């Protein structure tokens, strides 16, 4: 057991929990809007970094490293999309989603979908899909955290897993969205420092990039190509498209990421946040893939490729620096896991419990239910991660592919296409997720050379267009939604009559918000 590394990690955990406590005192956590969206008061820098660090999970240090280690430069197709995922999402739906969610009084991404596509079925289907997929996604983060701590500390996997999981749950409990956003901000900085440090050390060790590539060419020249080891994916543009799309357009289909748009202080916050997101991505995204490639030379006989980056850090760096790198790896894992837990708890409590079980639930009760669900997911996740831990890469690609296929067209059309109606959105979510799931489960990518997300996204998009157009006469988009969309397209203050304008019969919370804001008050 390496004492220096452990001390670094303990210090890191204390800082993270300290930020959570500070956030809790800063924000009123008994208020639901404060707990779920940080009171919609998050600025561009924190928005960008919480969005990016949430999107960059333990996948970046386990899955990305593993993919690059086994497939060489092919892995960079994933980085190619990921580099622009943040700015794409912020520029396409960021400002409009912030404004529309404010007008409809939506506090979760799923509630927002129901308000835009009015029907209890919208929320039931979207919430069910989200809870299942986000729970799977968070499971991958638990496994990644457990594996990392086990390697560095020498603790048994069950103990390491328990420690990682406990820290995540404690600070998610503390302050809700604000705690998550500020810890994400801190962790995103640690991630940058850690990954650049390990990349620098690896490059120095191999004698520079040119020397590394020459050495890789001697092992297997196909690893230098864009088609994978032994040119496995040669000419398979459907698979390439999937690799690029899942982490670019994909951002717009992930509830835990698009929620960041709703929490922005201003719709226009999206503008600067987009620039910050790109800057952060330029520093971060490609580095784990590059370290994975360099690990081919540094650690040619690695038993578990998912540990490539951990092992490179362990092998090349002195203990004190390894501690920083390990903190960075834990930061990537925890900054995603906390957001996933908060989002899953929010959706299950607000979109299922309050909406369908107890519509009269108070804000305090809702926060308690959300926290209870976070704890339950943590406990169930712990035992699954303990008994049968799947590969992190597989789980993340599975969950993100289906989330993208299910929700990206619905979220995009919600602010851009006035004819997108309820039947179209519901059909799109069902058909898109089912297609992607069947493609994944049936390994159809191997026979068709089309990635699940490529097919799922295409089918989901076509479905929302065709079904919406075919059902315009029987299910027109309500006038108040069209009016809200017209207002959303404009840049400027929200008129008083448009605030919390959602039909109160569908959203009791809109009535609460309206009464709090008061009638007739013009937004500044």
């Amino acid at each position, binding site marked *: 057991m390496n004492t220096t590394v452990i001390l670094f990690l303990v210090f890191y955990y204390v800082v993270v929990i300290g930020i959570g406590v500070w956030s809790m005192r800063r924000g009123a956590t008994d208020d639901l809007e404060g707990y779920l969206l940080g009171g919609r008061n998050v600025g561009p820098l924190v928005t960008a970094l919480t969005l990016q660090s949430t999107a960059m999970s333990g996948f970046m240090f386990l899955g990305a490293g593993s993919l690059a280690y086994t497939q060489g430069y092919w892995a960079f*197709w994933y980085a*190619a999309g990921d*580099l622009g995922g943040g700015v794409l999402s912020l520029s396409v739906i960021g400002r409009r989603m912030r404004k529309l969610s404010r007008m409809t009084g939506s506090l979760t991404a799923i509630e927002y979908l129901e308000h835009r596509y009015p029907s209890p079925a919208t929320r039931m289907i979207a919430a069910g899909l989200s809870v299942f997929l986000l729970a799977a996604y968070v499971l991958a983060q638990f496994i990644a955290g457990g594996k990392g701590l086990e390697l560095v500390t020498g603790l048994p996997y069950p103990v390491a897993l328990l420690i990682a999981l406990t820290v995540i749950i404690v600070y998610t409990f503390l302050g809700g969205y604000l705690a998550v956003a500020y810890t994400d901000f801190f962790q995103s900085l640690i991630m940058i420092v850690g990954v650049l440090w390990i990349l620098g050390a690896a490059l120095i060790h191999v004698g520079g990039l040119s020397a590394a*590539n020459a050495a890789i060419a001697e092992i297997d020249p196909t690893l230098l190509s864009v088609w994978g080891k032994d040119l496995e994916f040669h000419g398979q543009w459907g698979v390439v498209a999937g690799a690029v799309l899942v982490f670019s357009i994909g951002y717009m289909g992930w509830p835990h990421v698009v929620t960041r748009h709703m929490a922005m202080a201003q719709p226009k916050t999206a503008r600067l946040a987009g620039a910050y997101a790109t800057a952060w991505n330029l520093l971060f995204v490609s580095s784990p893939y590059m370290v994975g490639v360099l690990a081919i030379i540094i650690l040619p006989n690695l038993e578990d490729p998912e540990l490539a980056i951990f092992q490179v850090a362990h092998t090349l760096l002195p203990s004190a620096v390894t501690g920083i790198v390990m903190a960075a790896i834990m930061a990537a894992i925890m900054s995603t896991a906390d957001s996933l837990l908060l989002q899953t708890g929010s959706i299950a409590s607000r979109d299922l419990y309050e909406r369908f079980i107890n519509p009269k639930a108070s804000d305090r009760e809702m926060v308690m239910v959300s926290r209870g669900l976070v704890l339950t997911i943590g406990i169930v996740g712990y035992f699954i991660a303990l008994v049968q831990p799947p590969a992190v890469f597989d789980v993340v690609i599975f969950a993100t592919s289906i989330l993208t296929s299910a929700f990206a067209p619905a979220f995009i059309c919600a602010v851009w296409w006035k004819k997108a109606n309820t039947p179209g959105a519901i059909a799109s979510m069902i058909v898109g997720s089912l297609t992607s799931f069947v493609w994944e489960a049936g390994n159809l990518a191997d026979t068709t050379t089309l990635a699940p997300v490529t097919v799922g996204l295409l089918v989901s998009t076509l479905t929302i267009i065709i079904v919406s157009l075919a059902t315009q006469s029987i299910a027109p988009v309500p006038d108040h939604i069209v009016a809200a969309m017209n207002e959303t397209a404009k*840049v400027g203050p929200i008129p008083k009559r448009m605030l919390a304008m959602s039909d109160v019969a569908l959203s009791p919370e809109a009535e609460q918000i309206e009464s709090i804001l008061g009638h007739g008050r013009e937004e500044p």
Partner: protein
Amino acid sequence: MFGLPVTTTLLIFGFPVLWVLYTIGFLVVSRHWSEKADES
């Protein structure tokens, strides 16, 4: 470059350039957003 095939070089360095250009384009197109009053 760096001993890599041209296509790999384009993949590694070309996409970052494209996203930087996209971001600059977004900032230019949305420059009037920040000139407007409080939108909250």
